[in-house]
């Protein structure tokens, strides 16, 4: 019996669309990983195996690229990723307080995913919004000038 594909036909098509303008298929490796993640939320071992012939690379080569970059996830993540900035301006402006409050509310620490798969909690280097520290991203949404009492309302927006 044929194994079920983890990279959908739609995602495969999108990856093949990346090749024009590029001198070789390997040059699309990072963008291809982004496509896989867009559809699957993370990049599994099976996805690497399926990507290999598409990119004309070995799965190990692709993995060496995937594991280099912190926004390519090689472990499952929840439906929403909370990225809390822990760099210097947020440190000065009191990110610790936000960190503790998020840890309490989500009941997980950095690297964890809530049991209902709703949130994954990760630290992130400087988000480039230091005049409004402390800051975090939830998915693609930026929240700035954070105060612990705002967190419930923010988290409630994400199912």
């Amino acid at each position: 019996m044929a194994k079920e594909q983890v990279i959908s036909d739609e995602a495969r098509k999108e990856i093949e669309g990346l090749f024009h303008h590029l001198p070789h298929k390997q040059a699309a490796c990072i963008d291809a990983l982004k496509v896989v993640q867009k559809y699957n939320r993370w990049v599994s071992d099976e996805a690497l195996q399926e990507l290999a012939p598409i990119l004309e690379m070995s799965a190990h080569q692709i993995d060496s690229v995937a594991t280099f970059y912190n926004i390519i996830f090689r472990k499952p993540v929840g439906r929403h990723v909370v990225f809390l900035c822990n760099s210097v301006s947020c440190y000065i402006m009191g990110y610790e307080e936000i960190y503790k409050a998020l840890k309490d509310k989500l009941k997980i620490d950095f690297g964890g995913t809530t049991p209902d798969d709703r949130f994954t909690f990760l630290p992130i280097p400087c988000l480039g919004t230091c005049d409004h520290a402390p800051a975090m991203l939830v998915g693609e949404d930026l929240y700035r000038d954070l105060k612990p009492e705002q967190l419930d309302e923010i988290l409630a927006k994400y199912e």
Partner: protein
Amino acid sequence: MERPLTQHMKSDGTALSLKEYEASGGYEGLRKALKMTPLEVMNLVKDSKLRGRGGAGFPTGMKWSFVPMGEDAPKQKYIVANGDEMEPGTFKDRLLVELNPHMLIEGMIISAYAIGASMSYIFLRWAYHLGAKRIQVALDEAYQAGYLGKNIMGSGFDIDMDLHTSVGRYICGEETALLNALEGKRANPRNKPPFPQVSGLFGKPTIVNNVETYCNVPHILAKGAEWYLSLSQSEGGGGTKLYGASGRVKNPGVYELPLGITLRELVEVHAGGMQDGYKLRGILPGGASTDFLTPDHLDIKMDFEEVAKAGSRMGTGLIIVLDDKTCPIGMCLNLEQFFAQESCGWCTPCREGLPWTAKLLQGIEDGQGRPEDIDILSGQTRYMAPGNTFCALAPGAMEPLQSALKYFREDFEEHIHTHHCKYQHH
């Protein structure tokens, strides 16, 4: 005072559309450039004394002049915008790409014309989702209006442009690491030479400039080198600079000011001075990888020369302010943990030295430091000094530490002797 980079930005936080950009004089610089020879454009940029705004301050026109030109030069050349703004405490390129993406695009087209490039990439950091959307809208508008594509504005010059959003890692800001990332590889830096101007993206001549650097180019073309030089208060370079401040100041933000204003004016006037109840203790003048300055340095000019003379670097020009209630060792620990995490792992001194440094600082901060740790830390700053590592990441990481050991030595000693951190915030 003229503020060419920011004066037309809209206060409602939306981006200038193509029409609005054109109405503010946009694409006039390109129109002029296309009537000049590429060499004339390059020489004009040289005469303007535009210097790279990414941190190193290298003269932009000179950088371009290393690209092979003429009949024998490779046909394929590339222009790349470094929008991987990940230097902690830096948030100026975000403003440019979110509020006026056409200025970046126009600057890149002119630069491509000057070096004879037919393909260009905007490398934007992953976290700038809004910027990415707005750049994409602006690229579509520019293609539709004929500023990008084949035979732009009837000049016979072809130029394509694409947006690449990254997937993280600070090292992507190093220009050769950025090129590896654009090629789909791990972002380890490359050996130099060959420099990217000769052998860059896919082995072809490539110019990588910072976003803010490109944004200056249309204005230089439109209004000339003399005008551009008149904007600056610094001997060493022309134009305005996007300065900024974060930390416990009253008005943190980005401010476009003449290149070469004093640090005092930046801190006390534009950043509004310290918040009530906080005193100024130290300043990182241009991002996490610059040496601390102290209140004694407030009267130096914020330009490449004077900040260097004071023992630091202007870097990105966005200052991070250390107040008297925040522990300087805690701040150094935060910085070194960042650098340790972001080391690409390629060379041993950086891969091993930075985590060791962070661990020593953690021990001191937690009250478990030993007297000999201060000497070991200052040894680290020498082992990871420029020339001992493959790229500038670890030497940059040592800059705040070596200056903290100099200016805040009594804090290190007190932590070690009392086994305790006395600061409210540590």
